[in-house]
């Protein structure tokens, strides 16, 4: 039997958007802590966080066709607390409510209480980690069934969240974009960590006792997904952003870094991070092969 992936690109979009939203809220809290004067960037984070998560959830509900036709069944999602998906629903619900309250307070020019920011940040992290655990508990897929995936998804989520806020900042708040140096320096390290995590994930998956682990990795690095992996994820999503940001933050002079050209270069690297973040989810969802199709008991 040839294997057709169970989940498709809609789920990849959802995993990407959920992580992005969580990361964007973490970013807004980070900016409020380190650069409280950058009100516009904080607001950008406040807007992105609930909006992208809600878009992701709409995609998810449309993809769950049986529930889409019978929406009352979505209430049943809270019945099995042994399921990662049920926990995800709880995290997402609290996250969306908190981020919407924070957003409304922001528009009313009221300071949101610190504790609410912290609750939102913790929920954002929980959402990002849950997207990895969701796949991680599926024992039939060596590419998913390991403890690295939730960590990788968390780092990627925070990275894409920061990239989204910075990219929007280039256009709506160029002055503040130049101010948030500590955010940029923190953001620089995330793709570096991601490279290490992705390498570890691929090495360990390839060494899985099942042939499916090796085959999944080969599909990614030299099979059907190789171009997406090397060009869109590794080059555009990780290496180019690392090189460009390293240049901007430590090599280019202050004048270059804060010029419109410098901002556009940073913006391009942020766009690359976003593309890479989506391609990572797409690769992980699509390239995972199940142990039973190639398991020795059949072949």
């Amino acid at each position, binding site marked *: *039997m040839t*294997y057709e992936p*169970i*989940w498709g690109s809609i789920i990849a979009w959802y995993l990407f958007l959920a992580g992005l939203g969580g990361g964007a809220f973490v970013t807004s809290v980070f900016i409020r802590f380190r650069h409280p004067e950058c009100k516009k960037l904080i607001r950008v984070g406040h807007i992105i966080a609930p909006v992208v998560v809600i878009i992701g959830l709409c995609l*998810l509900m449309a*993809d*769950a*066709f*049986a*529930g*889409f*036709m*019978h929406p009352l*069944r*979505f209430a*049943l*999602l809270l*019945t*099995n607390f*042994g*399921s*990662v*998906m*049920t926990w995800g*629903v709880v995290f997402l619900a609290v996250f969306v409510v908190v981020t919407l309250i924070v957003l409304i307070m922001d528009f009313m020019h009221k300071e949101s209480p610190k504790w609410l920011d912290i609750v939102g940040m913790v929920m954002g992290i929980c959402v990002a980690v849950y997207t990895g655990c*969701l*796949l991680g*508990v*599926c*024992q*039939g*897929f060596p590419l998913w069934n390991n403890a690295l995936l939730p960590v990788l998804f968390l780092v990627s989520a925070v990275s894409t969240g920061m990239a989204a806020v910075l990219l929007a900042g280039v256009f709506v708040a160029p002055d503040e974009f130049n101010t948030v140096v500590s955010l940029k320096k923190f953001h620089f390290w995330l793709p570096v960590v991601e490279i290490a995590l992705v390498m570890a994930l691929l090495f360990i998956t390839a060494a899985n006792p099942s042939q499916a682990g090796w085959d999944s990795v080969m599909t990614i690095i030299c099979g059907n997904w190789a171009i997406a992996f090397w060009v869109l994820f590794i080059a555009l999503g990780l290496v180019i952003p690392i090189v460009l940001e390293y240049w901007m933050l430590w090599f280019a002079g202050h004048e270059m870094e804060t010029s419109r050209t410098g901002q556009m270069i940073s913006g391009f690297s942020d766009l690359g991070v976003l593309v890479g973040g989506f391609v990572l989810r797409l690769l992980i969802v699509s390239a995972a092969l*199940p*142990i*039973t*199709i190639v*398991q020795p*008991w*059949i*072949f």
Partner: protein
Amino acid sequence: MMTRYGMLIDTTKCIGCYSCRTACQRQNDLLPDEGFIRYEHKETGTYPTVSVESVPLQCMHCEDAPCASVCPTGAAHMGADGIVEADQGRCIGCLYCMSACPYQVRVRNSKTGAVDKCRFCAVQTENGTTSCTCVEACPTHARIFGDLDDPNSELSKAIVERDAHPIAGDLTRAKIYYVR
């Protein structure tokens, strides 16, 4: 003692005719593209002395069912007498159970979007009612259905006599036993 239903499939008797699959489709009123029984074929030997083993796979009704532990709505759950059930009225179609099932034997109903799978409908024949189950349809009697907890059942005896085992060792605590 509780009843704990299980099945034996003797692949040394299976001729790969798909009778069980089509009977199941009729018995359970499935869509033309929906089958609860999936066939895998294993080729052995070198030409010209080759042989092909047909292995019909279906829901193993695992006692530690991974589908039931991940299902967020409780649609996939352990029902009475050890039969894993897929409640069509609770399923939202998230397909999480299909990802969690290590045997890839759960199928999505393309009309309703809900996930379904082998219902162990052979249990209906226990009282003598004739029906169109995989067990009755098999022309070579490769299948035996019965109570695993009853040491005197035809099933329990056959498992011991023919040295039958779950298809993938202890991957899960499966209740379908294979003779290979």
